[in-house]
C-alpha cells in the first residue's frame, strides 16, 4: 500500500470505529433493556466482551507472527507481532478494568480468582515480559528475536494456564457466584448490542493495528538510514 492509501485506510477504519463506538454507547445506555437478574451493571458487558475479543485477536497475532518471524526472518512479521502485542495489551487493560467494576457489584468484591480474570491478569504479565525483553538488548535485532521467543512460549503456555486456573476453580466453587457468560440468555436487542460492540472494537483494532504497523515500518526505515549514514541507532521498536 502506498502512503496515501494507508492514510485513507486508517482514516476510514478509525472513523468507522469511533462512529460504531458512539452508536454502541447510545445502545448500551438508552436502547438495550436492563438484564433481569444482574440489573444495570450487566451493561458493562457490551464493552467488556468486545474488548476481550480483540485482545485475544491481538495475542493470537503475536503468537502466529512471532513463530513465522523466527522461521522466515521477515521484518514485516515482527512489526505485525509487536503491533498485535501493543493493541492486545491496550484491550486487555480495558478488559481488566471493566471486569472488576462489574465484579464489585455482581460478586461484591473487586477481585475474585475467577479463571477468566486470573488468565487475563497472567496474559497481561506475559506480554509485559514481551515488551521488557524487546527493549532490553543492545542490538535491536536480537531484542526482536527474544521477544518473538517470548511470544511463542506465551501462546504455547496459554492453554496450559487455562486448564490450570479452570481446574483450580473446581476446587473452590465458592469463588464463583456468577458465571460470566453462561447465565445470560441473550434476547434479540442484547444480541444486537453485543454484535455492534464486536464490530466497533474490531474496526478500532484494525485502524490502530494498521496505523501502528505503518509507524513501525517508518521506524525501521529510520534505523536503516541511521545505520547506513553511520549515525546513532534509531528507535528500537
Amino acid at each position, binding site marked *: 500500500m502506498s502512503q496515501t492509501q494507508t492514510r485513507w485506510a486508517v482514516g476510514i477504519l478509525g472513523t468507522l470505529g469511533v462512529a460504531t463506538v458512539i452508536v454502541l454507547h447510545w445502545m448500551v445506555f438508552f436502547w438495550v433493556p436492563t438484564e433481569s437478574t444482574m440489573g444495570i451493571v450487566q451493561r458493562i458487558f457490551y464493552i467488556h466482551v468486545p474488548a476481550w475479543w480483540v485482545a485475544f485477536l491481538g495475542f493470537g497475532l503475536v503468537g502466529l507472527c512471532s513463530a513465522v518471524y523466527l522461521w522466515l526472518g521477515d521484518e514485516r512479521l515482527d512489526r505485525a507481532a509487536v503491533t498485535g502485542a501493543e493493541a492486545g495489551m491496550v484491550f486487555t487493560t480495558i478488559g481488566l478494568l471493566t471486569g472488576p467494576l462489574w465484579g464489585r457489584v455482581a460478586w461484591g468484591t473487586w477481585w475474585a480468582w475467577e479463571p477468566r480474570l486470573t488468565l487475563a491478569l497472567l496474559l497481561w504479565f506475559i506480554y509485559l515480559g514481551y515488551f521488557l525483553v524487546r527493549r532490553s538488548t543492545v542490538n535491536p535485532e536480537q531484542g526482536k528475536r527474544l521477544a518473538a521467543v517470548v511470544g511463542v512460549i506465551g501462546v504455547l503456555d496459554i492453554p496450559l*494456564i487455562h486448564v490450570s486456573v479452570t481446574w483450580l476453580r473446581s476446587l473452590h466453587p465458592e469463588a464463583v457466584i456468577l458465571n460470566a457468560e453462561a447465565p445470560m440468555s441473550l434476547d434479540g436487542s442484547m444480541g444486537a448490542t453485543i454484535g455492534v460492540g464486536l464490530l466497533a472494537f474490531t474496526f478500532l483494532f484494525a485502524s490502530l493495528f494498521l496505523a501502528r504497523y505503518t509507524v513501525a515500518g517508518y521506524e525501521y526505515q529510520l534505523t536503516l538510514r541511521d545505520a547506513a549514514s553511520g549515525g546513532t541507532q534509531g528507535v528500537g521498536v
Partner: protein
Amino acid sequence: MRSYLALVWAVARKDFLVEFRTHERLTSMGAFVVLIGVLFNFAIDTAVVRPQALAAALIWLTIIFAGMLGMGRTFRLEEQDGALTGILQSPIPLDALYLGKVLGNFILLSVTVLLVFGVFTMFFSLRFSGNPAMLFGVVTLGVFGFVSLTTLFSAMATRSSMGESLLPVLIFPLLVPVVVFGTTATDRLFAGRPVAEVSGNLRILGAFAIVFTIAGAWLFRFVIEE
C-alpha cells in the same frame, strides 16, 4: 542418535564437573533452602496454622525460588570467560547444547529438591502418608518442566541488559501450571489420598515438560545467537 546423546551428555557432564569442583550453585541453593526454612519457621505461627496444611505450598515455592537462584546462573560461567563464543563456534548442534544444559540443571535442582524435602520434613515435622513413587513422579516431571523453561529464559537473560532481574517477570506467569498441579498433587499425596486423584496432575505436568522441552530445543538457537 548415539553421538547426539553423547554431545548432550558432554555438556551436562562439563557443567556437573564444574559444579562439583566449585560448589558455587549448589552452595547458594542449599543455603537458601535451609535459611528459607528457618525464616518460614519464624513467619508462620504454628499455633494458628498447621505446617502440614501448608507443606505442599512451602515446598514448591521453595523449589521454584531456589531453582531461579541456581538456574539463573546457567550461562554465567561461559559468559564471563567468553567461553560461550567458543561453544557456539564448535560443531555441536544448538539443541544438543540446550538439552545438555537442561539435563545438567535438572540433576543439580534434583539434588536441591532432596534437600528441600529433607529440611522441611525435619523443621516442620511433616508426615507423609501417600504413595512415594507417585510423589517422585510429580516432583520429577514438575521440576523437569520448570528447568526446561528456566534454562531457555536464563539464556535470554545473558543476552539482555536486564540480566537475571528479567527472570521473575518472564517466568512466574508461565509457571502457573507447574505451581497449580505440582502443589495440589503434593498436597493430596501428603494427606494420603488415593493415587487416582493425582494421575491427572501427573499427565498435565508431563505435557508441560514435553511441550517446553521441545519448544525450548527449537527456540534456543534464536535466543543464544548474537
